[in-house]
C-alpha cells in the first residue's frame, strides 16, 4: 500500500510491503528496508530499524499526526482522498489578512469594529489565557472586514477572530 505524506512540510512517499511485526517498506522509491515493529500501548510504537531502537509516540491532531521520537517532533499529514476537499479549502485568504488566536483562551477586549481603518501593528483584540494577555495586532494597513468573536468568548488555537482587507477607497 502506498501513502503520500507531508512530513514537516516536506513531501514523502512511503510504501508498506508487509505488515508489522516484520514490516518491509520503501521510502520515496528507494531500496526496500525491514523494520521490527511492536505497539506496547495505543499510539506508541517500538521500532527496531537497522539494529537501532526507536520509541515513537504518535498523536492525532485534527489536520495531521504529531510524531515524537528522541525529542524530535514531526507534524505529518497523511494524504487521503477524503481529505482533498478540506485541503484545498484551507490556505491563505489572498488579499485578506486573517487575525487568528495564537493560543486557546478568552477574548478579553475587542479594540476594533468592522469598517474601522487600521495601521500595521495596531491592536485588534486581546486574548487572555492563564492570566497572560496577548494583543493581536494588524499585520498591515487596511480596513476591518469582520470581527467574528465578541468579548468574553472562549476561542481555540488557530481560530479566526477577525479579517482585515484592503481599503476600498
Amino acid at each position, binding site marked *: 500500500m502506498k501513502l503520500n505524506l507531508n512530513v514537516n512540510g516536506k513531501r514523502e512517499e512511503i510504501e508498506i510491503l508487509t505488515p508489522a511485526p516484520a514490516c518491509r517498506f520503501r521510502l520515496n522509491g528507494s531500496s526496500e528496508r525491514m523494520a521490527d515493529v511492536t505497539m506496547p500501548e495505543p499510539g506508541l510504537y517500538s521500532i527496531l530499524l537497522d539494529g537501532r531502537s526507536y520509541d515513537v509516540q504518535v498523536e492525532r491532531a485534527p489536520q495531521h499526526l504529531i510524531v515524537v521520537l528522541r525529542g524530535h517532533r*514531526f507534524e505529518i499529514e497523511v494524504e487521503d482522498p477524503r481529505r482533498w476537499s478540506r485541503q484545498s479549502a484551507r490556505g491563505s485568504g489572498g488579499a485578506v489578512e486573517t487575525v487568528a488566536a*495564537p493560543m486557546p483562551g478568552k477574548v478579553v477586549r475587542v479594540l476594533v469594529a468592522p469598517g474601522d481603518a487600521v495601521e500595521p501593528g495596531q491592536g485588534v483584540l486581546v486574548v487572555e489565557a*492563564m492570566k497572560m494577555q496577548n494583543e493581536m495586532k494588524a499585520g498591515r494597513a487596511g480596513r476591518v472586514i469582520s470581527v467574528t468573536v465578541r468579548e468574553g468568548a472562549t476561542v481555540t488555537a488557530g481560530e479566526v477572530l477577525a479579517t482585515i482587507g484592503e481599503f476600498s477607497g
Partner: protein
Amino acid sequence: MFRKVLVANRGEIAVRVTRTLHEMGIGVVAVYSDVDRASLHVRMADEAERLGPAPSSESYLRIDRILEAARKHGAEAIHPGYGFLSENAEFAEACEQAGLVFIGPSPDSIRALGSKTAARENAVRAGTPVVPGTAGGVNLDEARAFGRAHGYPVLLKAVAGGGGKGMRRVDREAELESALRDASSEAERAFRNPEIYLEKWIDRPRHIEIQILGDRHGNMVHLGERECSIQRRHQKVIEESPSPLIAEHPEMREAMGAAAIAAARAAGYYNAGTVEFLVDPGRRFYFLEVNTRLQVEHPVTELVTGLDLVRLQVEIAAGARLPFRQEDITWRGSALECRVYAEDPYNNFLPYPGKITRLERPLGPGIRLDACVYEGWTVPMEYDPLLAKLVVWAGTRDDAVARMIRALNEYEVGGIRTNLGFFRQIFEDREFRAGHLHTAFIDEFFARPHQLEIPSDLAAVAALAAALESTAHTFTAAPPSGKGASRWVIAGREELLR
C-alpha cells in the same frame, strides 16, 4: 503539632505541601474551584471543600470562603503555598483573628516586605544596597521624570507584584504611556493593586536569591543561594543551587546571606522567606525584593541542603525552635529545576492549555518530580500554566545537566504543548553549560542561530510510524460512516499490526 491543616492553594504546590503534611501525620483539607474538582490536590487530600467558580477572584482569592472552609473542617492552621493569598497581609491577619495559625511570617512582616517599595526602604535602613528607583507607585508624569533623570531603559514593576506580573521593560519615553497602562491593569488583575513603580534597568544582571529561615524565638539562618537568571517574560524557568558564579566566588554566599538576614531581621521576619538580589557583571549585588512565602524553586535548596522546607515551615508555625544553627547547614552537590509549563516556547511562550492525552514521566536516580498532572486531566486555562517542576540532583553541575537532559528525554506530555523540548536546547547550549547566565539569556539564545538538523533515519522512522498509525485508524476519523468504519479499522489493524 497540628492535627489538621488547610492548604489554601492548587496545582503542584498544593500537592507538594500535602505530601509533607501526610508524612507528618497531619490531616489535609483541600479547597478547590469548580474547574479543579478532579485536580490532583483534591484527590490526594483527606478532606475537600469547594470555594466557588473558576476565576481566582471567586475562589482562591476568597478569604471569607477559605476561612469558612477551615472552620467547617476544623483545621488548626493554613498553608498558603505561593501566589494567590500567600503574600496578602489581610489574609494572614484574618487567619489569626479566626484563631487559625497562618503558616508564614506575621502580617506586619508581610506588610513591611510584601510591598516592593516598603521592602526597599526597609533594606536601605538595614544597609543593604538597592537598585535606583522611585520611592513608590507613580503616575505617568512621575514616571517620565524618573526616566529623564536616570535615562532609559527603565523597568516598570507592580508595587504589590511578584512572578513578573505587571512587569515591563521600557526602552524609550514614547512607549512609557501604553506600557504603564498595560502593566497597571495586569497588576490590578493579578494583585488587585494597580500601583506601578520604576527602577533603573541593570544590563544583563544575574538573579540570585537567598533562602532564609527563622523561628519565632529570634533564631534565623540562611540556606544558601539559588540562581534564577534563566527567565522568559520576567518569569523564572530554570533555577539552580549552587549558583555557578558563587561556586567560583564562595565568599559571596556569606556576604549575601548576611545581607539577606539583616534585611529580614529588620522586618522582624520569621518562617521561610527569600531575599532576591540582582548581581551586575561586576559581581556587585543589589537588593531586589523579599518573597514572604515558600518559593516555587525551593526544591533545589532542599536537594543540596537535605532539608524539607515545608516540614520546617509547619514546625516553626507550631512554635518550634530551629533544629540547627548556621554552622550546621551544609551543601552537597548541585541541583537544577525546570518549570514545565503548558505553553509553546516557539510561539512567544504563549500558554497552551488542554487535555493531557499521554504522560511518560522521568524516573530513576537523582530525579524529583513535583507535579499536579495526570493522564486524562484537562489543564484549566484560568490559572498559571505550571504543570510540573522537574528537579535533578547530582554530585557536580556538569553531571546534573547531563542528568537533566536524560530526564527531559524520558519526559513526554501528549495532547498539549510544553517547553520540554526548549529546555533540552538550553541545556545543550554552550553558554549555559559554561555558567554564563543572566536575565536576558533566553532573548540572546533565540537571537543566536540554531539549525537543528534532524537525522534522516528519524524522519524515516517517523514516516513509517505515521503510515502504520494512519492505516490502522484513519477510517475512524470520519465521524459519520460509523459502522462501515469500524470494520475498516479492524481490517487495517489486522493488516498492519498482526
